[in-house]
């Protein structure tokens, strides 16, 4: 049944949200215009508040409508049809919501609404200017999902578009305009992962949080309040740094767990697009800290806070305009919003630059020169290193944009991203890591004490000596295990150790004074640990699935090429690194049964989600399904069981890397499985399987005439024909009274275990049907061809096929846990810093004089563009 009401309600809500945002922006603007901060026009303010509340309600209504469409499987709507399907569990329906561009815009809008409501309640005198900016941003964002056509101009792409409006050329509309598809096309298999349920909201919350400091900074410039915005902006920046940082690592972890490029970070433009603003955000945080403590770096803070938000907008433009094209594996598809996105970006760039230029001379600066003994200097240098790192990533990631721009003005450009992106980025980012680790250690130590030559030497000697000793020890160990260590790696190792130790020593000192002061130190330890984790896991990631057969197959070249994948025949063990590895079959996930269930235990029916159990399915003593029961499975994913056994210690574990045959995505989607140890991970994924979309190639049928009790050889396996019995699994055959179904019972002795095989012989309506049975493990198929009742002889056809195999790649990732635990520490550090600042309200602003009038040169303007 076609239901247009809910879509109309949703679309109407979008329009209301857009109009209300426009009204709110204008009203808040008028409320604060030409007045000092905190002095607002009550009438306009009321209107602004009312409009923003209406906007908020409308946004909630849009979300409710869209979710109702997805949840109710209303496939007459394009969004539900293209992102969801009947068999999708509810928690993945949530991810459907933001699989599409429109939904992810909606998510972003939603977080802005939440933050906007908090600000409306608590921002007090900042409310009018800050909310004017919030409402202005909402105006642009809601316009992206507006879906209104004015003449030739299409504004926004509505998530409520009907399938028939989206694909008007389908012939079905002519005969049946109310046609509704029975099922949707489903959620992208790679997004069916629990991280995809929480990673996008986290990331978009991070995005949204950068708007608050930006709004305060712009409001400060607008109202001529150059210093008082810092305190509230600081708290929002801390939240943003924590949420965005965690969100980025979550994305990395999802990629590590789900994608099979063999790592957690691929320098894909989409990843970079979030990494860049985060670096600048962290730099801006340090600028704000410098101002709060030493009344310096205010201009830097302005520029960086503003740059952070603009870079978020630029990231949005990169990933959503289609400009990346070939350059990225997973950017959104182009919805024709490029123009709108450019206007959005340009509007805020121009607004910010104009305000900055207009007010630049009035922003107070400090006239004192920083000396080597000022920690401020080193914090500043550290922030600069972050900005340079961000600039480097930005400059390379934007290569497709240069092409697009040159093409736009008529110059043909064939510039491409570096062929070896990882080497390219590592070359610079490694040194940024060195800088960050070193300066964070140094500045943190200096920050909490009075510095002169002797005190500094005193405090730095111990961590410095310890890190040199530690580094020397690690280098020895690394060489003992037969790896090389480049000079840059040694430098990064030493500085990261210094970063950890210097910060640890400071945290211990601070703990005695006041625990909550140590948030910064803890976050810095986290960062340094992350660097060590990256160094170990990426620098020393070790492919253990090297071809060890001794054969070199390459035809054209004599040189050894990388042989990073091994072929594993089913049930044949192969040596791999220090392990013996054996592939032992294909499994399915059966909801409700722990672990996975062997495909050979399940008999498929016409309904691909339903199978019949061939034997009891049990775990320990608990029987989940009895033989003959209908078992509901999740047929999309096949799990390939791979057993690892350490040759020396005998220690064994089993991995189930999965792969999904997916016509939509055009082939096989493989996801790794990871065995985690304290000091390393074993990461394995399937690189190829025998062609899945083709029928298997069976050998010609060989007939055997047998009596019960006979023994034969089937494809090198010894088998006993035990009995003929009434068939057990006749469901799905549609048998009626008077029909006959019998099956042969064979016991086959495989290499490792015995198999029962039951080919069926069916007589229905005087027609003979044969249902062959197959042992996948052995590549063997039996059909029950004929019955000779007189002689008591039975004819069976035997055919064989190539044995099943997988091609596997396995990688060892040393000390990757340092990366994840470092991230947690960083988040804890941010949390402590937020906690420490919880009571610092607007009212408590100090009256420290903004000294100095000397104009200090523009230091930070380099990365604004």
């Amino acid at each position, binding site marked *: 049944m076609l239901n247009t009401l809910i879509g109309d309600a949703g679309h109407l809500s979008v329009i209301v949200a857009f109009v209300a945002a426009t009204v709110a922006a204008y009203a808040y603007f008028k409320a604060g215009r030409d007045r000092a901060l905190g002095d607002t026009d009550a009438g306009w303010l009321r209107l602004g508040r009312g409009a923003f509340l209406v906007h908020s309600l409308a946004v909630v209504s849009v979300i409710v409508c869209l979710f109702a469409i997805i949840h109710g499987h209303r496939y007459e709507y394009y969004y539900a049809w293209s992102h969801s399907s009947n068999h999708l569990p509810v928690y993945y329906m949530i991810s459907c919501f933001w699989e599409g561009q429109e939904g992810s815009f909606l998510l972003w809008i939603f977080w802005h609404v939440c933050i906007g409501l908090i600000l409306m309640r608590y921002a007090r005198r900042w409310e009018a200017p800050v909310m004017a900016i919030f409402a202005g941003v909402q105006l642009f964002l809601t316009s992206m999902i507006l879906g209104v056509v004015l003449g030739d101009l299409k504004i926004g792409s509505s998530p409520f578009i009907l399938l028939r409006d989206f694909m008007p050329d389908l012939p*079905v509309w002519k005969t049946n305009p109310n*046609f509704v*598809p029975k099922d949707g096309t489903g959620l*992208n298999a790679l997004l069916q992962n629990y991280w995809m349920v929480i990673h996008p909201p986290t990331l978009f919350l991070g995005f949204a949080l950068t708007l608050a400091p930006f709004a305060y900074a712009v409001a400060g410039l607008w109202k001529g309040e150059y210093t008082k915005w810092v305190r509230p902006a600081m708290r929002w920046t801390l939240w943003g740094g924590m949420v965005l940082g965690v969100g980025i690592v979550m994305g990395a972890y999802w990629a590590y767990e789900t994608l099979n490029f063999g790592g957690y970070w691929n320098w894909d433009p989409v990843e970079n697009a979030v990494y860049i603003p985060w670096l600048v955000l962290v730099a801006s945080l340090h600028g704000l800290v410098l101002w709060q403590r030493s009344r310096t770096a205010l201009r830097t803070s302005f520029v960086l806070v503003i740059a952070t938000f603009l870079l978020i907008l630029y990231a949005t433009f990169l990933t959503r305009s289609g400009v990346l094209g070939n350059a990225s594996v997973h950017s959104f598809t182009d919805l024709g919003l490029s123009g709108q996105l450019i206007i959005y970006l340009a509007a805020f760039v121009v607004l910010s630059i104009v305000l900055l230029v207009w007010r630049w001379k009035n922003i107070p600066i400090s006239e004192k020169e920083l000396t080597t003994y000022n920690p401020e200097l080193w914090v500043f240098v550290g922030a600069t290193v972050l900005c340079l790192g961000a600039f480097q990533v930005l400059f*390379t990631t934007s290569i497709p944009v240069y092409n697009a721009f040159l093409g736009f003005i008529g110059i043909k450009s064939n*510039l491409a991203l570096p062929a070896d992106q990882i080497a390219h980025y590592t070359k610079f980012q490694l040194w940024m890591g060195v800088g960050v680790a070193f300066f964070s250690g140094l500045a943190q130590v200096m920050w909490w004490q009075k510095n002169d030559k002797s005190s500094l030497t005193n405090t730095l000697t111990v961590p410095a000596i310890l890190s040199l000793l530690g580094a020397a020890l690690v280098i020895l160990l690394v060489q003992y295990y037969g790896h090389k260590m480049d000079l840059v790696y040694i430098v990064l190792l030493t500085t990261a150790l210094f970063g950890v130790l210097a910060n640890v020593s400071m945290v211990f000192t601070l703990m005695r004074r006041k625990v909550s002061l140590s948030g910064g130190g803890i976050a810095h330890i986290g960062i340094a640990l992350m660097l060590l984790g990256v160094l170990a896991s990426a620098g020393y990631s070790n492919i253990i699935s090297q071809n060890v057969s001794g*054969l070199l197959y390459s035809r*054209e070249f004599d040189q050894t090429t990388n042989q990073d994948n091994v072929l594993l025949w089913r049930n044949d063990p192969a040596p791999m690194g220090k392990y013996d590895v054996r592939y032992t079959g294909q499994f399915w996930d059966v909801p409700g049964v722990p672990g996975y269930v062997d495909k050979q235990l399940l008999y498929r029916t016409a309904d691909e989600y339903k199978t019949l159990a061939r034997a009891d399915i049990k775990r320990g003593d608990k029987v989940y399904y009895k033989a003959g029961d209908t078992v509901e499975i999740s047929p999309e994913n096949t799990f390939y069981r791979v057993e690892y056994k350490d040759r020396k210690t005998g220690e064994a574990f089993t991995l189930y890397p999965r792969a999904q045959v997916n016509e939509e*995505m055009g082939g096989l989607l493989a996801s790794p499985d990871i065995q985690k140890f304290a000091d390393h991970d074993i990461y394995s994924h399937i*690189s190829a399987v025998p062609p899945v979309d083709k029928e298997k190639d069976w050998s010609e049928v060989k007939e055997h005439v047998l009596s019960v009790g006979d023994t034969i050889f089937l494809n090198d396996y010894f088998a006993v024909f035990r009995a003929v019995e009434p068939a057990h699994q006749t469901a799905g055959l549609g048998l009626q009274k008077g029909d006959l179904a019998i099956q042969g019972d064979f016991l086959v002795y495989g290499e490792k275990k015995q198999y029962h095989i039951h080919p069926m012989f069916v007589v229905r309506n005087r027609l003979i049907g044969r249902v062959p049975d197959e042992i996948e493990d052995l590549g063997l198929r039996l059909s029950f061809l004929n019955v000779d009742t007189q002689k008591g002889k039975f004819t069976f056809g035997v055919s064989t096929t190539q044995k099943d195999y997988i091609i596997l790649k396995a990688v060892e990732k040393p000390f990757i846990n340092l990366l994840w635990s470092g991230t947690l520490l960083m988040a804890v550090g941010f949390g402590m810093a937020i906690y420490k600042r919880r009571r610092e309200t607007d009212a408590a602003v100090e009256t420290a004089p903004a000294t100095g009038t000397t104009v200090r040169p523009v230091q930070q303007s380099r990365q604004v563009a």
Partner: protein
Amino acid sequence: MKKTHIFIMAIIAVAIAIITSTAGDASVYVSFKEARERASEGNLTKVHVVGRLPRDGAKNIMGLEYNPTVDPNYFAFTLVDTNRIAQRVVYFNPKPQDFDKSEQVVITGAMRNNTFVADKILLKCPSKYVEKDIEGATASVN
């Protein structure tokens, strides 16, 4: 000269170093003709080539060579670039599973002895968002 100035100059120097180094690392999209010329000049830097897979009348891709049971790390195919020059390409990795369905292929690598050795294959598949048949759409008509 004040310290600030030195600092600014250092920053500018690093920024310039980043820009020039990136310009040096940046690859280019070329045709096979140009890739061969580069190789014959001894220039072994990796390039990007965009091409299509030649198909026979039955829409099957011609010239694919992948026998995992012989060598799982050897995959060879023929790619026709935008100037319609065909070139044998070797990829020392398993065949990407969605290779058969891709319309456009971007490879990175360099020519070595008359063969293009690719180290990365980017596939442009018929997008999920492109119009397609809806299951059941024909069934419900009658």
